[in-house]
């Protein structure tokens, strides 16, 4: 079965649909700062839940659950944002009077900006929005991510999700397409150890689909079943062909979706046999 991926799965960009249930109501917005958690990966990860002193992130039944904020309890203290390994938590404050609010963003690049700097606010897809002023900086370290707060117009609080320091822009690569592969080719498929140069070589030799590249390189055959490499290979194919990603089939998805030991599988069958 061939399946087309959503924008979120394909390029990692959340849409308004994906954010449904992640934002507070109007009353909670006026009460004070709050956390917006843009986490969509059902992976075994729970630092946000265990770090919250206000029990404002709904408890997990399973460690793979996605976090949801109880906005009546959230104080916007930003502890969760500092421990999220995915840099997926943002603190929004639109409780003050006037047209401006603040957005607090996790930031892992150097140099860390200082209060008063002018930076370029950017949207989820990295596109430039407008210059913004840094109003607060919390340094990182000891397992905690640095946080930088920007003052932005309230109507852009759910748009700004990153920023760049303008002087540094030229030296910061922002996509695989711009990487210099002469130095070291980045890994595309971690499970099978396939790098970007190998993928590009196969495309140059005429391999046209994710499945063909999988057969030839093993990219996507490992335990994670292509969760990260599939998107990179699709974007490489699209870039080579000069067409939209949507022109390409996402390739075959193979069960089981998560590795399961044969002992567990065999036992399930024995129980079924006993029950029947």
């Amino acid at each position, binding site marked *: 079965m061939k399946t087309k991926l959503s924008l979120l799965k394909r390029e990692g960009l959340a849409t308004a649909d994906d954010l449904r249930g992640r934002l507070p109501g109007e009353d909670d917005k006026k009460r004070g700062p709050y956390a917006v958690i843009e986490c969509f990966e059902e992976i075994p990860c729970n630092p946000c839940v265990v770090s919250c002193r206000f029990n404002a992130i709904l408890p997990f039944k399973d460690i793979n659950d996605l976090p949801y904020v109880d906005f009546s309890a959230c104080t916007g203290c930003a502890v969760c944002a500092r421990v999220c390994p995915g840099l997926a938590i943002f603190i929004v404050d639109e409780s003050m009077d006037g047209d401006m609010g603040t957005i607090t963003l996790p930031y892992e690049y150097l140099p860390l900006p200082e209060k008063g700097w002018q930076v370029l606010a950017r949207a989820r897809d990295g596109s430039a929005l407008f210059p913004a002023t840094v109003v607060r900086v919390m340094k990182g370290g000891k397992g905690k991510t640095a946080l930088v707060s920007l003052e932005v117009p309230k109507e852009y609080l759910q748009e700004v999700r990153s920023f760049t320091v303008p002087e540094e822009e030229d030296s910061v690569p922002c996509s695989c397409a711009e990487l210099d592969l002469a130095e070291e080719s980045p890994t595309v498929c971690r499970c099978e150890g396939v790098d970007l140069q190998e993928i590009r070589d196969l495309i140059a030799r005429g391999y*046209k689909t994710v499945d063909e590249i999988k*057969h030839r390189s093993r990219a996507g*055959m490992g*335990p994670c079943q292509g969760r990260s490499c599939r998107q990179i290979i699709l974007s490489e194919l699209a870039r080579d062909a000069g067409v939209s990603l949507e022109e390409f089939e996402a390739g075959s998805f193979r069960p*089981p979706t998560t590795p399961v030991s044969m002992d567990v599988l065999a036992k*399930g069958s024995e129980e*079924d046999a006993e029950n029947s």
Partner: protein
Amino acid sequence: MQKTADVAIIGGGISGLSIAFQLAQAGVGNIAIIEKNFLGSGATGRCGAGIRMQWGTELNCLLSKYSCEFYEQAHEIFHNDIDIEFEQGGYLIGAGTDEELEQFKQNIKLQNKLGIESVFLSPEEAGEIVPHLDIRQIKGATFCHRDGHLNPFRTVEAYAEAAKSLGVSIYEYTEVRDILRDGNKLKGVRTDKGDINAPVVVNAAGGYSGLIADMASVDLPVYSQRHQIMATEPVEPMQEPMFMGFSLNIYIQQVPHGSFIMGRSDDSEPTDLRLTSSWHFLEEMSRTCTRLMPRLGQLKIVRQWAGLYNMTADAQPIYDEAPELPSFYHAAGFSGHGFMLAPVTGHVIAKRILGEKPDIDVSSLNVSRFKEGGLLPTESSVV
């Protein structure tokens, strides 16, 4: 796309590639392979890719011996540097019953007579070759050190490159829609990209060969059945040979990459060309495997997939010209052994097309045997 060909081959799997390669080597100039998906996307890229010479009938022994010897020399034959990863770690075949044990003793006599260096082993001797095998589950075993397995994707690539260098044209993502005929005279093939006029057409469409025969309005008594495989996470090398059992219903090998891959057969598998995977298979395969090799139970399954066996009533292939339509050839019904037989398939079909005598007499593998009650002796050495 070209308008004419001397030979049009339907199916870009290992069989079609082998036929094209052998014809091109023999000097046929204008050969077109038509593949509806990409090369090796059907059963070829989904199979266990094992090669064994240990069979129970003389013909099967001879066919597989030809193929094994071909793959041993593939590097020189293909004249390219693609490594097909032919790992000759042997096949260890376990007997699950006393009856099977007796059959194996007969098989060994036959195989040795034909120059196949197989030996009979006690359970203890088998356990020395595969230490994680629970030898209480077997009555005895046979072993041939020259058997082994290949990387099917690399083998496809090696065949394709060799064929292309001899001038063969390959059309991928091109689907055959009809066989063109004028009465009893074959005209060529119609594809979704245009017609190719060809005086000779070969049906090497694997699981879909029945559909192609229907397009030509010729009788091909085959059906396709789903077979499934699953693969574990990779681990350090611990099993050199393929282990196989017929009454035990398993084949399992550790590929050079480190994964174990394994399959079994199941009469309840569907015959409607579906390629889906089932949970039932994961459980049954895990039971079969862990009963025989308990230590492997800790290994995690990371992938499962399915492919089609193109079956005949006697589980042996059909190598023949269609009686109803001269110059339309069948290379079909491999019943799960198309990959290992591919070299000999190319040889016998090419010889037949050229009107020459092949090295092995395959006249008994004709398409009429099913009508005339001429089924071949049953081959019990199949999973």
